[in-house]
């Protein structure tokens, strides 16, 4: 772990994979060889060939094109859900860490309640209630996920506040905001970055899992989890339909996990364990 070459290798490979993903998500339709939505029943369930590199699905649609175009849906929803939970959680965490004891107890009590639910169940129910769609899935993950970040940031802020230079800053009469920006944020940034990277990977899994159950992106729009749900019935006759989207999910999660592990080594951050893993 102290081997600097390995540190670079993890970050580099993770970063490289993430860049490919980003590129695919941004270019989408332009790089796809076929229209991901065009149905052609003559060519249904074809095995991989030179024309259709990953074969075709039960409606004769090109699997490769659907995976490429699905990148945007899958990644954007993971990022959206993540940012929603992150921004809410971090702001509440800062408030809780710097506020009076009463406010702090109240906020942490609410966090206790939210964290008492198993994460996936809470997301499942919230999304189900709002009606299955990408939007409700993102909001559901946001509502279920903020509490973890709030508690995480609060703990870090309380830790940072104990440091002498933060006390000095306080004594100098700095406002809360400049105290956070100049003294506290730089300290908590490394563990935060590691957590963000690792959690993004987990969010991709959560979102594709719920899409697999039928709660996320609705067909015919391409999304990896939804594609797996549709192709499950053809598991024995057309296994490529199941293998390809799953590989796409695994690779993108792998990208963020490698990045997170690499950053963890780089910053020498002690491991942070998520309640929900």
């Amino acid at each position, binding site marked *: 772990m102290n081997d600097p070459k390995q540190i670079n290798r993890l970050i580099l490979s993770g970063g490289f994979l993430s860049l490919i993903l980003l590129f695919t998500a941004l270019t989408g339709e332009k790089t796809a060889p076929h229209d991901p939505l065009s149905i052609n029943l003559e060519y249904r369930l074809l095995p991989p060939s030179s024309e259709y590199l990953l074969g075709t699905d039960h409606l004769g649609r090109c699997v490769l094109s659907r995976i490429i175009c699905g990148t945007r849906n899958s990644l954007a929803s993971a990022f959206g859900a993540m940012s929603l939970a992150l921004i809410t959680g971090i702001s509440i965490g800062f408030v809780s860490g710097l506020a009076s004891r009463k406010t702090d107890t109240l906020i942490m009590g609410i966090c*206790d309640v939210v964290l*008492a*639910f*198993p994460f*996936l*169940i809470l997301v499942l129910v919230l999304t189900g*209630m709002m009606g299955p769609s990408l939007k409700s899935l993102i909001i559901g993950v946001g509502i279920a996920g903020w509490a973890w970040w709030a508690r995480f940031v609060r703990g870090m802020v309380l830790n940072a506040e104990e440091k002498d230079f933060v006390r000095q800053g306080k004594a100098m009469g700095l406002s809360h905001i400049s105290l956070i920006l100049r003294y506290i944020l730089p300290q908590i940034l490394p563990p935060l970055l590691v957590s963000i990277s690792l959690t993004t990977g987990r969010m991709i899994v959560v979102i594709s899992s719920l899409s697999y159950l039928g*709660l996320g992106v609705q067909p015919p729009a391409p999304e990896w989890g939804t594609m797996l749900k549709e192709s499950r019935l053809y*598991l024995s006759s057309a296994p490529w339909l199941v293998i390809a989207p799953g590989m796409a999910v695994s690779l993108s999660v792998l990208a963020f996990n490698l990045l997170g592990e690499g950053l963890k080594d780089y910053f020498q951050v002690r491991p942070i*364990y998520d309640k929900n893993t």
Partner: protein
Amino acid sequence: MENYLKKQAKRYFPLKESIRLGITLFGVSLLTFLMLEFVPGDAAEMILSSHNDAVSAEKIAALRKELGLDSPLPIRYLNWLRRAVSLDLGNSFRTGDPVSREILNSLPTTLTLAFFTFLFAVVVSVAGGIVSAMFQNRLPDKCHRLWTIIAVSVPDYWLGLILMLIFSLKLHWVPVAGGTGFRAFILPVLTLGLSVSASEGRVFRASILEILSQDYVLFAYSKGLTRIKVFIRYMFKAAVIPMISMWGMLLGHLLGGAVIVESVFSLPGLGKLAADAVLNRDMPMIQGTVLTMTFFFIITSRIMDVIYFMLIPQYRKT
């Protein structure tokens, strides 16, 4: 470390802790109740529209009165809570059966799955942790780390499908989803176990490495004990203690039903019950399953916390 333990021990002062647990349980019940209040259409409409097509406004109003849906929100919550405490969770909109009975019927499946997965995860993570700690930064350790990153990255439902493809459809070793008996649990346990045990192995490794540098371990070595004896007598127990709370959380999660894996393998457990209820918008069933899962989740982590404190010698008396 000493300071941290003291802080923790303070947290486990029983009265304060029970009050906090009570407040959390209250919050959980309130949130579960409120979540379904915001759904358009209430129970009366749902029940009537599932029975016959023509629904008159009078009929809805009458049923609403009968179900007590016309009383104000706090009263309705208290009524619901009173019934829930006596395990009356209402009837499923879909089947008409009592929710509590359906939950009870799903428990054997979930408990079996949870028990074997837990066993599998503990054995694999302990073995992986020991091997990677003993060969720290050498090849087995690096392989273990790589394996962990891969195992964490592969989503469990896809792993399930792939295992099903290989072992059921190609090799015909185990029945495809829906079989009965112990054989039906082999693939689900393998799927869940592989995905949860990976990261725990890393934690156990870190825990062993921390103890490796303690004075008493050095002392035991200098007495001339062999590596294995030192490990079994002095290190194992100390290294396991930090794992207890992680295993507690894991068990809580498993008891709450593996929603995804149960759905993939069509195992009729608590998780599948919850997923189906959400997809069918079966409100009483959703409330019932969520309450049951959350209850298991909270209770298991509390019990594990207590065990954790009983295992730390300094606080055994408190």
